[in-house]
C-alpha cells in the first residue's frame, strides 16, 4: 500500500475515534508530564543546593554552643571582671553568667590558665571574642576567624509605617570577606565601629528595598533599632538564599559589640567561624579547635560543623530526593504504560475483526503493521505533547508551594520521547499479535 494511503487511513481512524484517542492518551499525558516535572524539580533541587552554597566558604568551620545542660560550677561567676554594661537593664541579673568577654582583656595570653578556671565554672557557656582569639592563636593552619550572632528585634524608620521585627546580626568587620558578601553601595562595618560600639549598620539588599524603596535611598539614612538610631553605612548586593546561618538579603548587620551593648546584653549564643587555610585540613583543624576549647571549657560539648560536610549532607539529601523522584517517575511510567497497554490492547482486540477484514481483503502484514504503528505513534505523540503542555501548565502551581522547578528543553524532549516510545510499543504489540493470525481466526475472534 502507498504510504500516503496508509497515512490517510490513520487520519481517518484517528478523526473517527477522537474520544478514544484522548482516553488512550491520558496515560501518556500523565506519564510525560510526570517525567518532565520530575526532571525539572530534580534539576531545580540541584541548582538550589548549588546556589545556597555559592557564598559559603568551603573551609569554613562553625563553632557554637547550644545546650546549657553542662557544668554547673561552684559559683565563681565574677570571672573576668565586670562587663562594661552588666547592669544594663537585663533581667535575671542574679544568676547571670558573665561571658568573660572583656574586649580589652585579650592581651592576656599568659593568663590562659587562670581564665580557664573562670570560664569552666560558669553556669552557662557563652562563646566570646576571647575564645575566638584563643583559637586564632592556638589553632594552626587557619586563615581567619570571626564571631557573630543573630537576634530579632523591632526596627523603625524609612518607609515603615510601624515598628517591625527584623533579623539583626552582630558581626565583626571581617564577616563580609569570610561570607563572600558583596556591597552594592557604601562600606561594611569597620573594626573601629566595633571597638567603639558605634551605631552603624549595613543592610541586606531586600531589607534596604523594603525599608527605603531603593539601595540609593537607604544609603546614609537612619533606621531605629530598638528605638536607637543607626546610620546605614552600606548596603549589600543581592546574594540569594543560603543553606544555613545568616540569610544576608534579609538581615541588618551591626557591629558585634554595639549589638551586645544596646540590644542583646549577654543573652546571646554567638557562633565562632574559623576558616581553614586548606580545605583538606578541615578535619585536623576541627580536632585542634576541640582541644583548645576543651582547655577552656572542660567537658563542654560544642557543635562544630564545617561547610564541606554541610554541603555534602545537603547534596546527599538532594541526591536522595532525586533518586526518589526518578523512582516515582519510573513507577508512574510503568503504571501509565500498563494503563496504555490495557487500553490499546482492548482497542486492538476490538479491532482484531478489522485486522481480519484487512487480511481477508489481501492486505499484507507489513501494511497492517505500518497502519497500526503510525496510529499508535500519532496517538502517543499527541499524548506526549499534551503531557508536556500539562507540565508547563502546572509548573506555576508547583512553584507556588515554593518548590523550585527548572524546566529544560532536554527534559521536554526526553519526556516527549518517553511518551511516544511507550505508547508506540504498547500500541504496536497487540496489533502485531493480531496481524499474525490467519484471517478466519481474526474474523471469528470476538
Amino acid at each position, binding site marked *: 500500500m502507498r504510504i500516503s494511503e496508509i497515512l490517510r487511513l490513520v487520519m481517518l481512524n484517528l478523526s473517527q475515534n477522537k474520544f478514544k484517542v484522548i482516553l488512550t492518551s491520558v496515560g501518556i499525558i500523565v506519564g510525560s508530564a510526570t517525567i518532565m516535572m520530575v526532571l525539572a524539580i530534580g534539576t531545580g533541587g540541584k541548582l538550589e543546593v548549588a546556589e545556597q552554597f555559592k557564598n559559603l566558604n568551603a573551609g569554613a568551620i562553625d563553632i557554637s554552643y547550644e545546650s546549657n545542660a553542662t557544668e554547673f560550677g561552684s559559683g565563681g561567676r565574677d570571672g573576668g571582671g565586670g562587663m562594661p554594661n552588666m547592669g544594663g537593664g537585663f533581667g535575671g541579673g542574679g544568676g547571670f553568667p558573665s561571658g568573660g568577654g572583656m574586649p580589652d582583656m585579650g592581651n592576656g595570653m599568659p593568663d590562659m590558665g587562670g581564665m580557664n578556671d573562670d570560664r569552666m565554672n560558669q553556669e552557662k557557656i557563652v562563646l566570646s571574642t576571647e575564645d575566638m582569639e584563643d583559637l586564632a592563636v592556638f589553632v594552626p593552619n587557619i586563615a581567619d576567624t570571626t564571631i557573630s550572632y543573630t537576634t530579632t528585634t523591632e526596627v523603625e524608620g524609612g518607609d515603615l509605617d510601624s515598628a517591625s521585627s527584623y533579623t539583626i546580626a552582630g558581626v565583626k568587620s571581617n564577616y563580609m570577606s569570610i561570607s563572600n558578601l558583596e556591597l552594592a553601595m557604601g562600606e561594611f562595618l569597620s573594626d573601629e565601629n566595633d571597638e567603639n560600639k558605634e551605631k552603624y549598620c549595613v543592610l541586606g539588599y531586600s531589607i534596604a528595598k523594603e525599608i527605603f524603596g531603593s539601595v540609593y535611598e537607604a544609603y546614609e539614612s537612619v533606621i531605629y533599632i530598638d528605638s536607637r538610631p543607626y546610620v546605614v553605612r552600606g548596603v549589600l548586593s543581592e546574594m540569594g538564599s543560603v543553606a544555613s546561618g545568616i540569610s544576608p538579603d534579609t538581615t541588618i548587620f551591626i557591629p558585634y559589640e554595639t549589638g551586645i551593648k544596646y540590644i542583646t546584653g549577654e543573652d546571646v549564643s554567638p557562633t565562632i567561624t574559623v576558616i581553614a587555610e586548606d580545605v583538606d585540613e578541615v578535619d585536623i583543624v576541627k580536632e585542634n579547635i576541640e582541644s583548645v576549647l576543651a582547655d577552656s571549657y572542660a567537658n563542654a560539648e560544642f557543635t562544630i560543623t564545617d561547610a564541606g560536610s554541610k554541603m555534602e549532607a545537603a547534596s546527599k539529601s538532594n541526591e536522595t530526593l532525586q533518586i526518589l523522584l526518578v523512582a516515582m517517575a519510573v513507577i508512574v511510567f510503568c503504571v501509565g504504560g500498563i494503563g496504555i497497554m490495557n487500553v490499546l490492547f482492548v482497542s486492538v482486540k476490538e479491532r482484531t475483526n478489522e485486522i481480519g477484514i484487512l487480511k481477508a481483503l*489481501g492486505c499484507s502484514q507489513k501494511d497492517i503493521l505500518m497502519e497500526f504503528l503510525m496510529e499508535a505513534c500519532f496517538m502517543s505523540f499527541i499524548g506526549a505533547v499534551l503531557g508536556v503542555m500539562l507540565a508547563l501548565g502546572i509548573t506555576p502551581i508547583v512553584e507556588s508551594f515554593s518548590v523550585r522547578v527548572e524546566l529544560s528543553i532536554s527534559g521536554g524532549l526526553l519526556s516527549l520521547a518517553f511518551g511516544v516510545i511507550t505508547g508506540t510499543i504498547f500500541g504496536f504489540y497487540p496489533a502485531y499479535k493480531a496481524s499474525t493470525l490467519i484471517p478466519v481466526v481474526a474474523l471469528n475472534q470476538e
Partner: protein
Amino acid sequence: MSIIEIKHVNKGYMLGDEKVPVLKDINFSVEKGEFVAILGPSGSGKTTLMNIIGCMDLLDSGEYYLNGRAIHETTEKDMTQVRNKEIGFIFQNYQLISTYNVMQNIIMPLLMRGMGHKEAEEKCQEIVKLLSIDHRLEHRPNELSGGQKQRVSIARALASEPAILLADEPTGALDTVSGQEVLKLFGKLNEMGNTIVMITHDLKVAQAAKRIVKIVDGRLSDYDGTYN
C-alpha cells in the same frame, strides 16, 4: 483449465485432544464462468469449505489449485496476494469496516494493491452505479440497511476484478425481496462473465445458480434433486 480444483481435501477442528473431522475427502472443481451453489444444512461444513476456497483457512490434507496455483503449498504471505487479486469474498455478515464510509470500504482492495484513492474511486464508479449504492457513498455502514450493506460488500468484492466471487449465505440476513434482488444481481454478474460460488442452506436460493452441489455432514456430492 478449472479455476478451482479441489482434490481429497480434509479439514477438522481440535476438540480437546480429539480431532473432529468437518470436511471429509472433498473433491470439487469450478470452471470459468460457472455459477455454482453449494447447498447444505447447518453445521454441514459449508463455511469451512468456503474459507478454504477463499484462502482464509488452512486445509489439513489434500490439494487445492486456484487458477493453476497450488494453494496447499503456498505460504500465508503469498496467500495474502492471492486473496487480493483472485478472490472476491462476500461475507455472510458483510464484514465492513465501521469507521470507513461506503466508498472507502469498497476501494480498500485496490488501495492494498498500491493504487491511489482517487484512481480507485474513479475505477469503482461503474460498480456502485450497477449496485445502486452511488447515492450512499458518504454513509457509514451503520447508517445502511442490511440489503445495502450486502451490496456494499458485493461492490467491494467486485472492485478487485477477482477470478472468482465467493458468497457465504449472501441472502441469509436479508428479507425475501432484498434476497431476490441480490440473486438477480448474481445472475447478471454471471452473465457479465464472473465466476461465482455461493453457499446456502436454502434450496430456493440455490436454484438461482446454474449448478448445485450438496454437502451433507462434510461430504460433497452432486445434487440429485433431493434436499431437506
